[in-house]
């Protein structure tokens, strides 16, 4: 038994990245970003309101938050839906009480179904981002370019029909195809939350101009820590606050950075987790070095400050 000889060909072996979306550049070598406001850490809280359909195709894989048991999985459908009708309002209240601004990434499937949620998010001054059609509409390289273009087009149309024009995009399950960045800019999106390559906004090269990637740390996601890794609430919030304090400690030498983390309403919005979430948000609201803002404002501030 042996592999095809081409298996040991290395056509992209050379200095820097093995793809063309962005160039190799070391964080330590760039001029530190000094935000005009003096903020040391830009906290990007992403509240991911995804609709998880009850009859998913699970192609090419199941969304980690989606259905688990055979159809009809009332258990997971309704416990996910809990997040978007009950839990998310606890998160909104906790943010409002502290004057914090976040980015709410919504499946387009929710726009009509949960219209009062959209109103509540906008009334509180948060940014809305697009999170694809629904949790099971996964973008992947098994789709043709036209299929994926149609999916993104449907999302864009649904938001437009709701009077919204989000500029930021979060892919379902944070999965992309090789074409996704090009198709996103073709549809007018200019920011993306799937790539976490750098600690400051990073422009991806696309066929239609730049797509700014903002780091959303997958290892700080509530579902991953609390559900998949079975950590407790104190450990979950301690790690996020530790990240904040560490980034502050780097500010003098490395400049301002972005701390992105995801709250998932059916996880963070549980009654028994709200006190932990409130303590976490107190840690952000009470820290003058930290600025909580929507993705668009964060990009704007970094662009304005870039040398």
């Amino acid at each position, binding site marked *: 038994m042996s592999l095809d000889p081409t298996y040991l060909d290395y056509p992209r072996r050379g200095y820097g990245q093995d793809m063309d979306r962005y160039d190799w550049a070391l964080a330590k070598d760039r001029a530190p970003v000094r935000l005009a406001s003096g903020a040391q850490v830009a906290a990007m809280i992403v509240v991911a309101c995804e609709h998880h359909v009850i009859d998913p195709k699970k192609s090419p894989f199941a969304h980690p938050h989606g259905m688990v048991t*055979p159809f009809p999985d009332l258990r997971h459908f309704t416990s996910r839906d809990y997040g978007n009708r009950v839990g998310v309002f606890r998160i909104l209240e906790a943010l409002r009480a502290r004057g914090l601004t976040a980015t709410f990434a919504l499946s387009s499937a929710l726009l009509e179904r949960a219209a009062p949620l959209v109103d509540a998010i906008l009334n509180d001054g948060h940014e809305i981002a697009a999170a694809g059609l629904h949790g099971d509409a996964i973008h992947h390289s098994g789709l043709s370019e036209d299929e994926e273009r149609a999916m993104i087009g449907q999302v864009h149309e649904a938001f437009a029909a709701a009077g919204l024009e989000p500029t930021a995009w979060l892919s379902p399950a944070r999965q992309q195809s090789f074409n996704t960045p090009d198709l996103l800019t073709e549809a007018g999106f200019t920011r993306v939350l799937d790539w976490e390559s750098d600690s400051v906004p990073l422009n991806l090269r696309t066929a239609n101009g730049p797509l700014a990637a903002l780091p959303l740390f997958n290892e700080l996601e509530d579902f991953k820590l609390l559900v998949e890794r079975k950590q407790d609430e104190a450990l979950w919030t301690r790690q996020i606050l530790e990240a904040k304090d560490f980034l502050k400690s780097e500010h003098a030498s490395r400049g301002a950075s972005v701390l992105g983390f995801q709250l998932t309403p059916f996880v963070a919005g*549980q009654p028994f987790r709200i006190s932990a979430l409130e303590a976490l948000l107190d840690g952000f609201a009470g820290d003058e070095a930290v600025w909580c803002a929507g993705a668009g404002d964060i990009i704007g501030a970094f662009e304005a400050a870039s040398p």
Partner: protein
Amino acid sequence: MTADPNLYDYNPYSGRPKIEWPGGKKLAFWIAPNIEFYEFDPPKNPKRPGWPRPAPDVTGYSQRDYGNRVGHWRLMEMMDRHGLRGLVSLNVAMCDHCPEIIEACAARGWEFFSHGVYNTRFSYEMDEAQERAVLADSIATVEAATGQRIRGYLAPALTHTTRTLDLIAEHDFWYTCDLFQDDQPQPVKTKTGKLVSMPYSLEVNDVITYGQLAMDPWRYADVLKRQFDQLLKEGEASGTVMCIPLHAYLVSQPHRLRAFETALAHITGHSGDVWFATAQEIAGHFREHFWDVVQDDLDEKGLNTGGTAFDAWAAS
């Protein structure tokens, strides 16, 4: 896009009409001991094996049996000490296998709802007549054993068909424990009847907390206290429901029960604000006083989308 199963209307948690519990209580609290029978050698369901391992799964079977022989009695005595009644989620074959348990619960004024015949007989692939037979069996078996007409349903092992909700509504069940979308009772969109989704607090079910989330006994107690504190606080604006779904084979293990009791003591220490009830009482109160209030509010807000559960599936 995939159709919405249309189980209920979207109802945002903020700005709801105020639900009031009897005596001005803020939170309706109920305990659901699951009293279950898992067969030693169950028949195969095409969608799910009876046990994760090939039968006989001796460890799994015997731990559940420990729950019935030892654990249930510990839990029941502890609830007696705190003056709490259970609303039993019952595999109705328990009435045949272990009648002493059923008699002891009934003698205390506990109530029952059906959790299917066995926890190893799943609803997947049942035809309508078979599903009706399970419901008729449930009603008749509990009635014969206790004289009670059951009004609630939690599908065995949380396995369903698209007909389940309509069938239980048709059999004059008042509530389902299978829907986890809310912390308040809510109307379910069935073809007939007034079926209420009863909060069953799956996230604090001991199967989820000890098993899936790997909580230690003391953390589980802490989670229950925090769950209670938050829902009690919110119950000021509009009455909330908290359930603790339990399994004696888990919570009544010798390393767990004392930590759990601290949570019960915390909750019973707030008796001035808490309606200690059964789901049947909560569902009855909601149906009588708040079903129309919630429906009218949904209508006013333009959130009533019409239709019934799974109608898009029936049409296709």
